[in-house]
């Protein structure tokens, strides 16, 4: 019998990948090299690690609530704040998104389509407009406070607080949490739930012993897709935080605008390395402990 020729990698695949390869070389790989190059050079393009060390050592004076002034490591503090807000947003997205994804995946096909569309609609609107909309909603005389006042709870100060920044992040990145979890849940075999009930599980048991473990790869990818953009976001914090909560993305933007290209590149480079390590760790543990997490 004649064996069929395997599709040659160099042939069919190679050609069809050409456009993307060219694109990624030009707009992903080359810029990354430039970022690294700028991060490790000074204004005269001589090698230096000064930009990197500056990130970890630069200090500034901060006035505390009681008037005392203390020295803090500027960028480390900014980075930790970014991480904190991103982590809070991710947890909120997960807590709200997981049950929603489950309900969607068990709904009738027509309801599923409608719910997916509803979740996607905000993504059709421009990111800036969405953020501006939140500004009007959350400001002291905005809709939110009007409602609070009406029911006798407000007004509350929200705009310019960390809460406002978190609300903005959750709103913007929520679909990225729901959709991967939803997608993995629709693929689950209903027979597995029946098997679990047959073997003695009540509804909570089915969730705990079957649905949750099988949905973990979706959860991990949702966490990746929310945490990483929220760590590096800058616009939301400026608009909803009134610029009081300088995040790492704001720092990069600020340095760039101030024409400190090398230091901006260094911050971006460090952020990238940290995120890469983080993603690597998630991948490693997923492959080791999560079914389907390779």
């Amino acid at each position, binding site marked *: 019998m004649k064996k069929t020729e395997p599709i040659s990698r160099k042939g069919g695949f190679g050609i069809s990948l050409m456009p993307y390869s060219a694109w990624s070389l030009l707009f992903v790989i080359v810029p990354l090299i430039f970022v690294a190059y700028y991060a490790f050079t000074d204004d005269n393009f001589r090698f230096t690690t000064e930009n990197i060390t500056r990130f970890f050592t630069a200090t500034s004076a901060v006035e505390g609530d009681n008037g005392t002034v203390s020295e803090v490591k500027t960028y480390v503090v900014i980075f930790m704040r970014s991480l904190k807000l991103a982590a809070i947003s991710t947890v909120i997205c997960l807590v709200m998104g997981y049950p929603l994804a489950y309900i969607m995946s068990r709904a009738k096909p027509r309801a599923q389509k409608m719910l997916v569309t509803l979740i996607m609609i905000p993504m059709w609107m421009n990111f800036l407009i969405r953020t501006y909309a939140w500004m009007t909603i959350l400001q002291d005389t905005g809709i939110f406070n009007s409602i609070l006042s009406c029911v006798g709870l407000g007004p509350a100060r929200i705009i310019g607080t960390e809460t406002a920044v978190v609300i903005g992040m959750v709103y913007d990145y929520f679909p990225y949490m729901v959709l991967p979890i939803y997608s993995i849940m629709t693929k689950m075999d209903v027979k597995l739930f029946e098997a679990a009930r*047959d073997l003695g599980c009540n509804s909570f048991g089915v969730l705990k012993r079957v649905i949750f473990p099988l949905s973990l790869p979706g959860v991990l990818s949702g966490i990746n897709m929310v945490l990483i953009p929220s760590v590096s976001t800058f616009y939301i914090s400026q608009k909803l935080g009134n610029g009081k909560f300088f995040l790492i993305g704001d720092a990069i933007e600020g340095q760039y605008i101030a024409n400190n290209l090398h230091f901006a590149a260094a911050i971006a480079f460090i952020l990238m390395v940290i995120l890469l390590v983080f993603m690597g760790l998630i991948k490693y543990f997923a492959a080791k402990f999560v079914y*389907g997490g390779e």
Partner: protein
Amino acid sequence: MHNYHLIEFKNVSKTFDTTEALSNINLYVDENEFLTLLGPSGCGKSTLLRIIAGFELPTEGQLLFEGQDLTVIPPYKRKVNTVFQKYALFPHLNVYDNIAFGMRIQKKTEKEIEYEVGRVLELVNLKGFDKRSVDSLSGGQQQRIAIARAIVNKPHVLLLDEPLAALDLKLRKDMQIELKNMQRELGVTFIYVTHDQEEALSMSDTIVVMNEGKIQQIGAPCDIYNEPKNAFVADFIGESNIIDGVMLENYKARFSGHTFQCLDKGFAEGEPVDVVVRPEDVDIVPVNNGMLSGNVTQVTFMGVHNEIIVDIGGFKWMIQTTDSVNVGERIGISLDPDAIHIMKKSEYSGMFGDYSSYSNELDELSDPGREE
């Protein structure tokens, strides 16, 4: 002895939206019975099984279990376990944890679990497979694990939903014997769903033949085969020639232009009936000695026998014979009284039992396959 059946269906009906899946089912199952629900795809057999498991609620009627009303008890509180058609093993758990699943919920000690898992793995001939992932197992092995996972919980009834449908022929035959032995060894009631009549005949104590949501016949395999109640059962179980006939008097039937002696009685004189003749019960004789005669239109070599189609007065008969005959040859046939089975006319009369459009290939193509 108690005076109730292990499982009893009382006037159970089930309607999905507007289609009736089960209509007025009355059925009981006794302890240690191997009962098979047999029927084509969509006949309601799986729905019946799912009602016992608790995955579906009957629209009407009652399900009794050991004398207690079980109709609305949720699945996890029932003393039944299911072996699913495509096994439904948990892919995120290894073999050991799959089998231990039920016992962990019952909060058995790990020591007890270890002992029980070892015991059932031995029973299904998969000793030493504890740590394997279920994805790495063959279909037959997954099947055994699915059985082990169910029986380890010591159910009073084991429900099997076409468990062998996904296996190849040889493995299926082996597993049939194994399942039957396992049932005897465990002393557990098996309720087995299949569309494969051979499987049903070879394994069951009792067969329930179903079609269109109704029970057509309940009986032991040989009764179902030898004494089918209507044309549907006769056609579904094995091959049958079903001929229009008239009962002249007790033990005397007329069909195909000849009067035959038979063993059936109790019909009205001159009552129109369906006559069943199994292909293997027809004797081929020289034309002059035959009660009937006809031309051979098709001969198929089947290994053990030849399957031939004979045109007798425009009606095509199937005959299985070890004699060798040729297409175009004229042959006579002779029927002993016990080769003839008389059935009352039913809604299925005239729908089955004529081999004029017969082809092995077509039969295979229209196999109902697995039921969802």
